[in-house]
């Protein structure tokens, strides 16, 4: 033990970083959960903006819709729809883990893939539902 690890200037060993690991569904789902969470944090600002614009009367609401209806606005809204679907489904997966279910390697991988497929389907279904004129049923 001549090479004392705590000697000043000694290169301390680093724990393996992200680039070392082979990409897997479970790890990607974990990263996506955090990323969608951060995206939805931005979404809370859009929710506040929408509520304020509605409270400001017709012109206020129009000012929101002009931005929301642009192609970039729609892409962002699709991103929020998918993020919400993913974060909720993967959150339920996390809650199941907290209760001790679904920890086996096979199950965790399968539920991870399922969350990606289902969340995409939900986001596409939401947009298809609106585009085919089924939205606005609360009028």
């Amino acid at each position, binding site marked *: 033990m001549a090479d004392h690890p705590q000697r000043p200037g000694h290169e301390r060993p680093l724990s393996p970083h992200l680039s070392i690991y082979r990409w897997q569904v479970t790890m990607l789902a974990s990263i996506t959960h955090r990323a969608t969470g951060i995206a939805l944090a931005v979404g809370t600002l859009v929710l506040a903006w929408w509520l304020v614009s509605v409270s400001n009367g017709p012109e206020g609401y129009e000012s929101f819709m002009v931005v929301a209806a642009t192609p970039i606005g729609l892409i962002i809204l699709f991103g929020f729809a998918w993020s919400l679907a993913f974060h909720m489904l993967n959150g339920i997966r996390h809650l199941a883990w*907290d209760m001790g279910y679904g920890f086996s390697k096979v199950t965790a991988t399968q539920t991870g893939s399922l969350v990606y497929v289902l969340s995409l389907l939900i986001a596409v279904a939401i947009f298809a539902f609106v585009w085919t004129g089924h939205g*606005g049923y609360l009028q």
Partner: protein
Amino acid sequence: MSTPLHRVQGLGAAHSGTGHFWRQRITAIALVPLGLWFTYAILGLIGTNEVAILSFLAQPLNALLMAAFAATMLYHMSLGLQVVVDDYVHGTGTKIFCLLLIRFMMIATMVTCIFALIRIAAST
């Protein structure tokens, strides 16, 4: 800073116990039905006009559910963003700044949403 009681309770270097963990889970559970209601509400209001949205949000139950959704989501958000900061921000000063910013943003957005809902309820 650790009092003897703090030490005895096993709160040592982490400065807190399992409170954060539980609050994250409790708000997550609450957000499942609230998020489903929010999706139902938004889809039902897309393509309508601001009159329909105003009258929907002015109904007490809808206003309460929207306020509950916004407040619960924002609290859940602040807990989640705190973990991100805990993981990636290491300087003490920067960390305190980020954590304060998250909490201020949470309260500011929450107050804004609730004030907007009160204005909507008062306008109809």
